[in-house]
């Protein structure tokens, strides 16, 4: 309400301060972009002038060429789509399953105590090591890749969400008890809303983890997807294709992270 007024009431000193904050922000953005531009430009120049061997290092122009040729034969978006699909399915299933398991463990502290060492071992185990077994069990294809991506994120989710649940002030639970709330009501009115920020930060971590799982899975089994392009490109000594896939991967991973961060902003605003 008073915000509109304040804008006009700013003193000179405050305006100077605001300007300073803004200019710092601008400098950061400009420098960020500059680093990227300089990197790409020097890569291109070094490759054009044969300071580095473009067969081994590729170059921005070759990456773009490879991008266009894949786009023209129509397979680019198929590969991107498949990888994205697997990743999104992997991390959302991982987050949902992890959160559900955490709820069950929270509801039964006895079970949670029993399973604790198993969770620790599962968490320490590199899940990618299970990939060959999973491929045998599930078959050579997309479902196996999704399961690998899911496995990578599910255990960390269980642990971080359960830790979050257990960090709730005991007195808040006591308050619910003075209302004679049932376990379901405690979950619904206290634990869930309290855990939304925790769930989102788990989601953020899981996005990154799922990429690892999906690319790893595609290395092993796929005939499609960016991971397949990387392995295939390596095998046929097409490093342009490898570089192109890595660049595309970075861009998509960046956007996916931004989307999750945006969702976080929407859900967590006003709470603090």
């Amino acid at each position, binding site marked *: 309400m008073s915000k509109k007024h304040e804008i006009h009431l700013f003193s000179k000193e405050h305006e100077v301060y605001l300007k300073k904050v803004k200019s710092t922000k601008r400098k950061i953005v400009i420098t960020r972009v500059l680093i990227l531009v300089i990197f790409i430009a020097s890569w291109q120049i070094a490759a054009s002038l044969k300071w580095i061997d473009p067969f081994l290092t590729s170059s921005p122009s070759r990456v773009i060429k490879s991008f266009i040729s894949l786009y023209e034969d129509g397979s680019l978006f198929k590969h991107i789509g498949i990888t994205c699909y697997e990743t999104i399915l992997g991390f959302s299933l991982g987050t949902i399953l992890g959160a559900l398991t955490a709820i069950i463990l929270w509801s039964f502290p006895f079970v949670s105590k029993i399973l604790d060492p198993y969770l620790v071992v599962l968490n320490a185990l590199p899940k990618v090591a299970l990939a060959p077994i999973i491929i045998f069990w599930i078959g050579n294809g997309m479902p196996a890749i999704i399961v690998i991506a899911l496995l990578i994120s599910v255990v960390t989710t269980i642990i971080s969400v359960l830790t979050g649940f257990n960090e709730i*002030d005991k007195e808040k639970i006591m308050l619910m008890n*003075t*209302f*004679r709330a049932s376990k379901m009501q405690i979950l619904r*009115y206290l634990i869930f*809303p309290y855990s*939304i920020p925790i769930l989102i930060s788990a989601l953020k971590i899981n996005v990154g983890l799922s990429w690892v799982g999906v690319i790893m899975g595609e290395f092993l089994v796929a005939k499609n997807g960016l991971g397949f392009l990387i392995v295939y490109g390596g095998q046929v000594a097409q490093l342009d294709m490898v570089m192109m896939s890595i660049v595309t991967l970075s861009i998509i991973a960046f956007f996916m992270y931004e989307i999750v961060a945006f969702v976080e902003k929407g859900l967590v605003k006003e*709470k*603090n």
Partner: protein
Amino acid sequence: MCLLKISNISMNYHSIKGETQALNNINFEVDDGKFISILGPSGCGKSTLLNIMNGLLEPSSGYVLYKGESIKNNLDKIGYMFQKDHLFEWNTVWENVILGLKIKKQLNDESKERANALLDNYGLLRFKNHYPSELSGGMRQRVALIRTLALKPEILFLDEPFSALDYQSRLLVCDDVYNIIKTEKKTTIMVTHDIAEAISISQKVIILSKRPSNVKIEIPIDFGNADLTPFQRRKNPLFSDYFNRLWKELDQSNE
């Protein structure tokens, strides 16, 4: 009239290392409409006693009677207020106030109106749609009290309700809470370790000894004028007399 009767309450805590006797044969009565403080050295089991009285904890022996009946059949007559306000940050003031009603499935037009009237009476109506983080410590504590009062309890239990506040707001909120409780005519039992607070707000102070604690002495507080607010009581000459007396009793119970 005796509303609450605490009879031979003992409580032992068990841990791997051994057994701790927290409460040892506690007896007292609380009359209808009175404001009573339970004062004791830290760690003497005051909160344990409060949690037994409101049925959250099972005593090792003894019983608590509400109007001659077991308290367990009368749990909905009790309202509980904590040291911290424990408002849910993700809910508005209004959602916080009706939380208990919602959980007890008592949310209807009548109870909503009651909650609304409470907010209005105690100057919080225009903050109805604000979030707790936008309120001062004193306002938050008032919201917490209204959340409790919305359930229409007969007895209020206050567990060191002011100790999370800074000194100045503690005095102000103490007056606030006292006025609200007086207007709503609730029987109140407050647990505290603050001698001045106990004298300023209550009609009777029950002093507990240190662990294993029992009732050392009951001291009625009478300033001759029932209309004095806690703050006015603090300025009354009788205040320091009571203070010295309680101080001595507490000191002996610390030995």
